[in-house]
């Protein structure tokens, strides 16, 4: 694999709330067109890292560069332009409950593009079909959707403007293993056809095995290990060891080796 340039570059990042320091001088690179899985114990700061990169949380120290734009030095217009180039899938979907599924997907298009209603309808339905939903689902309201469908709609909305970076916050949490597997595969195929960079916060070992190119492990406010799954299995860091070679991780590792 050739070394690709980093689309997200995090340097010396410190984030905290009150007396608690969650991220402590953290460095991280996300390379072009890869799927990076970020793992860590509950409360290790995975979601905090994601929310800091997309600018929802303030940072105390350090720089964040996304697609060559320094988040600290960018002005309002640059930020807005940047926000059009990324899509975010929130943990609970965060669909707008008063809009239908189709309107949810059209929302970013309506705000950012000057295109006809016809093209907008066609694109929304196309995106819904790409994530495995039917045109009939487009008329439903978010409260009528199952957990898996909510995630799919949220993914379709995140993809609405054909982003270059896709942030996923625990995309498979709350899904049954089969739906989770399907979702991983969906992310993988979409990433390949659309050539996007994916930053995925996850707890799901299966996702790490099947979907991710590279894994970064967060512990003690830092990235303690990063690399492909093989490197994780050899890591000596105690948490990484327990995680990947513990009861659940071990089983998957064996299955992976024998397959």
């Amino acid at each position: 694999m050739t070394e690709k340039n980093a689309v997200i570059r995090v340097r010396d990042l410190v984030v905290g709330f009150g007396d608690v320091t969650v991220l402590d001088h953290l460095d991280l690179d996300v390379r072009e067109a890869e799927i990076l899985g970020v793992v860590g114990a509950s409360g290790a700061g995975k979601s905090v890292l994601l929310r800091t990169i997309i600018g929802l949380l303030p940072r105390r120290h350090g720089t964040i560069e996304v697609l060559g734009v320094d988040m600290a030095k960018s002005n309002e217009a640059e930020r807005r332009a940047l926000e059009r180039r990324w899509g975010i899938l929130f943990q609970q979907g965060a669909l707008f409950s008063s809009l239908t599924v189709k309107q949810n997907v059209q929302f970013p298009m309506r705000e950012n593009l000057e295109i006809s209603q016809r093209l907008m309808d066609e694109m929304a339905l196309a995106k819904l079909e790409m994530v495995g939903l039917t045109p009939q689902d487009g008329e439903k309201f978010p409260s009528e959707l199952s957990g898996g469908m909510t995630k799919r709609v949220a993914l379709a909305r995140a993809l609405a403007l054909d982003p270059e970076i896709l942030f996923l916050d625990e995309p498979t949490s709350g899904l049954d293993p089969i739906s989770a597997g399907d979702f991983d595969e969906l992310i993988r195929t979409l990433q390949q056809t659309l050539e996007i960079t994916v930053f995925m916060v996850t707890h799901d070992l299966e996702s790490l095995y099947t979907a991710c190119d590279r894994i970064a492990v967060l512990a003690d406010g830092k990235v303690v290990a990063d690399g492909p799954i093989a490197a994780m299995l050899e890591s000596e860091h105690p948490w990484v060891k327990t995680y990947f070679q513990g009861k659940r991780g071990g089983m998957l590792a064996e299955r992976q080796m024998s397959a």
Partner: protein
Amino acid sequence: MGEALLTHRLVGERLELAAGGSWTASHAGELEALVERVSGEAPKAKNVSIDMAGVREFDTFGAWLLERLTRQWTASGQKAEVVGLPEHDRGLLKEMHGVNREPPPKLQAGNPIVTFLAAVGRAGADFGSNLIVFSEMLGAVSLALLRVIVRPREYRFTSTVHQFDRVAWQAVPIILLITFLIGAIISQQGIFHFRKFGAELYSVDLVGILVLREIGVLIVAIMVAGRSGSSYTAEIGSMKMREEIDALRTMGFDPVEVLILPRILVLIVALPVLTFLGSMAALYGGGLVAWLYGGISPDIYISRLTEAISLTHFEVGMIKAPFMGLVIGIVACAEGLRVKGSAESLGIQTTNSVVESIFLVIVLDGLFAIFFASIGM
């Protein structure tokens, strides 16, 4: 603005299109117009070729517009071929080839007259169902109250005290302020107009009777409906949205007993208390204005007040208060339980709750006026 996105050339019976630049979301608007224009040229040609070699950027928007173009021509029996598309973009075009095959579901737009009649009918039915929902809630609350009377230990005192603090205690300052001002305004208007025929002193009767019988309790009830009724609806509504009510029910608790009964009882107690405080503040405000503006000294004001009002006036106001509390509580809780999944429905039900409880409070006040007049109070 660099290369042209789409140029066309007619060679005999063959339409040659050359695409270039960025076929992406940010150019989708211009691109769509170009694609529309080019498809107008199509009938002249037997076959079409689209050269995509000049395209630098390509995403689903571009891919879909290309697909739409070729699909349209293939449908009308012409031959369309796409050449020069880079290998890694072919997957995207293939993906788009499969989508939007079935027509989108049609939304039925009915006859406007029928729609209007349906809306009127639905509004009528809603009104009826509202009455049913309120009586159901009243029944459920009475049942819960009976159960609590039988087993008083199950009553939630902590919750009651907490609600009382929020609904009554924390409302005292604003209620005092508003009723004080209302009393002062009534007094000032009374003095101003009665002065024309030298009957300033009657403004004291006006303030006393009006405040104690009607205005005190009405203002307080409207304030409480806006302040506490809305918060009840929003609280219970968002608990409903997040399945907390269902959780309570499955654990063997009756939501009416746990959540609603304490809230309604608190309102029934709080309203008379607030009405009493409010009426006193209004009389005080009226007295102050009478003294400063009308020159009626406090001694005269008080002695005139004792002559003008009787215990009956005070009772009329106070008897009404708990019933108004009950109406506000029933409406607020019933509307809260009708909240559905969306944020919008929470807003609608909260609005409904406030509007309906203020309306019912005023209707109830009218009914009481008839009742008291007929029994001579």
